[in-house]
């Protein structure tokens, strides 16, 4: 009994530590940066949404299918949430699931023509179909706001003022409350993604990547599973999109263009996709680089371009391949007698 407890702790302590740090972030930020700290919290919120997005992309790539429309799927979630909240006053606990369902439907429609293609044609086809969706946002003034997009998206609120369960997102306190809302949704999404990854479906998708012909022969309808993973990945991308819609308060079609998609790819390539931690490392390291390059922002695309090329040429597995080496390094430092 004790042994299984200690194994549980051993496995989960890094994740638990990170969650605790994030939970304490508002206090820490206020301590270090005073009032400015609360506004820097927005950066963390964007970070959390990006982590969910990157993890959902990692899920997508499990079958070996890399898409170029993933950012658009996130945009679907953002737009749907924005439209429901702005025009119809729908509360957040409905906009988020409804947006997710709509995004799954769109994912399905995009996946259908792509389901019999693989590799490169799949990649480009997904790009073209994603752009199609973006053109719709640009063309239709109602409800998408055309090329100007949607602004003044109301902050999420729960209940009416006066009710005992009213959570006020709209006062000065709102930054911190919105942060916690984001954190909770992000943790929820990440746990679900983890469970999916280690489930039978996760194994099926990984097996399809390893040998799809073999999978066919043991009863896996590969086409169906590929469409399924597209939709599930779209679901989680939509969650990230809903979060960002509420945080930014305004969205337009240019927020979901090719450049943003390439950045998503950079996070995932730099971090790696083989392990569950890869995307987290990728988003963290690239967000850091992004912040550090603020003074030279015209050179940013060049810097990231060089990072992307170097990563693919010199470290195609991503930074996550360094994890076992790093843990072994620390274990040796600490003097653990374990044989790795």
């Amino acid at each position, binding site marked *: 009994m004790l042994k299984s407890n200690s194994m549980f702790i051993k496995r989960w302590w890094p994740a638990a530590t990170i969650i605790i740090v994030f939970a304490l972030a508002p206090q820490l930020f206020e301590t270090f940066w005073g009032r400015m700290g609360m506004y820097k919290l927005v950066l963390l919120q964007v970070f959390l949404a990006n982590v969910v997005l990157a993890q959902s992309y990692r899920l997508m790539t499990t079958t070996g299918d890399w898409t170029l429309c993933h950012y658009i799927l996130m945009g679907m979630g953002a737009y749907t949430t924005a439209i429901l909240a702005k025009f119809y006053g729908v509360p957040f606990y409905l906009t988020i699931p409804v947006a997710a369902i709509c995004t799954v439907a769109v994912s399905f429609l995009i996946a259908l023509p792509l389901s019999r293609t693989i590799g490169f044609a799949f990649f480009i086809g997904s790009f073209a179909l994603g752009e199609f969706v973006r053109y719709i946002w640009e063309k239709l003034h109602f409800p998408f706001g055309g090329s100007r997009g949607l602004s003044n998206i109301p902050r999420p609120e729960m209940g009416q003022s006066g009710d005992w369960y009213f959570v006020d997102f709209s006062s000065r306190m709102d930054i911190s409350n919105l942060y916690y809302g984001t954190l909770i949704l992000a943790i929820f999404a990440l746990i679900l993604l983890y469970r999916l990854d280690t489930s039978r479906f996760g194994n099926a998708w990984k097996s399809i990547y390893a040998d799809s012909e073999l999978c066919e022969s043991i009863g896996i309808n590969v086409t169906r599973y590929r469409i399924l993973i597209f939709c599930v990945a779209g679901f989680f991308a939509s969650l990230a999109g809903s979060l960002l819609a509420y945080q930014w308060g305004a969205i337009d079609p240019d927020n979901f263009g090719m450049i943003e998609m390439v950045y998503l790819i950079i996070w995932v*390539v730099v971090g790696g996709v083989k392990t569950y931690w890869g995307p987290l490392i990728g988003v963290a390291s690239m967000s850091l680089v992004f912040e550090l390059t603020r003074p030279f922002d015209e050179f940013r695309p060049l810097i990231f371009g060089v990072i992307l090329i170097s990563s693919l*040429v010199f470290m195609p597995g991503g930074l996550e391949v360094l994890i076992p080496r790093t843990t072994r390094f620390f274990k040796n430092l600490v003097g653990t007698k374990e044989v790795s």
Partner: protein
Amino acid sequence: MGLDILPQTIGNALVLGSIYAMVAVGLAIAFGVMQMANFSHGELFMVGAYCVYVLYTLFGWPFELAVIASFPIVALIGVIYERLIFRPTRGNVLAGFMATAGAGFILQVLISEWYGVGLPKSVQVPYPGGSDFLMMAISWQRLAIIPVTIAMVFGLWYFLTKVKDGKALRACAQDPEASVLQGIKLNKMTALAMAISGGFAGVGGALMAPIVSVNPYMGHDYAIIAFIVVIVGGMSSIPGAVLAAFILGFIHTFVSTFADSVYGMMIGVLFMAIVLIVKPTGLLGNVKV
């Protein structure tokens, strides 16, 4: 909107189809020879346009010379791509493709730094005035694109079928291992393919420089279209690329004339989706990509 604009629309469609063909052929040959897919093919197009801007507008070279010069300049960039990006990632199509996205960023920043982003550059039209050629009211500038494209595609056909290195290129596309056994140097072939790929994209951009606004992001739309064309035509098929280029040129022109250009793009994408459902390998393709 009577039938009187029909000849003009057809003319515009031929012009557009020619540009699409120019850009798509480059992609098809690079992919056919060694599965080299260039995400930033549009940026090569853009560099070609800037060649004309620099040589013709800034340095005063004759327009024709500037266009001709764009071929070797952008071809060289293609060769650099091959050496630094495609060779190390050979075997992994997706990795090479994504790496070229990074290269595209680099090119955009470099051009922005050298020539500024601000207002788009405009290049004077060397062949001013409209023509009434065959009842089509099209500017000479646009019309000039058609013969140039025909000449270049014909030149490529001649190269691939009659010239030793061209034939070696085709052999390589069919079977790289067998080609190596025949003494063909793979690296030379991949570099050659990328040179042609870059050269065609560059000339495409050069020809369009007086017609569209020149800015570091102009290549974006052409890249999307080039990819759609290549998918519809069949990933590594050059005749497929040419055929699809004209089909899509016609679709885009007609829809744009009667509706607008965004709808044109959308219909093009829908057409691609239909082709993918009915024949995933493309109209003239037989490679399962």
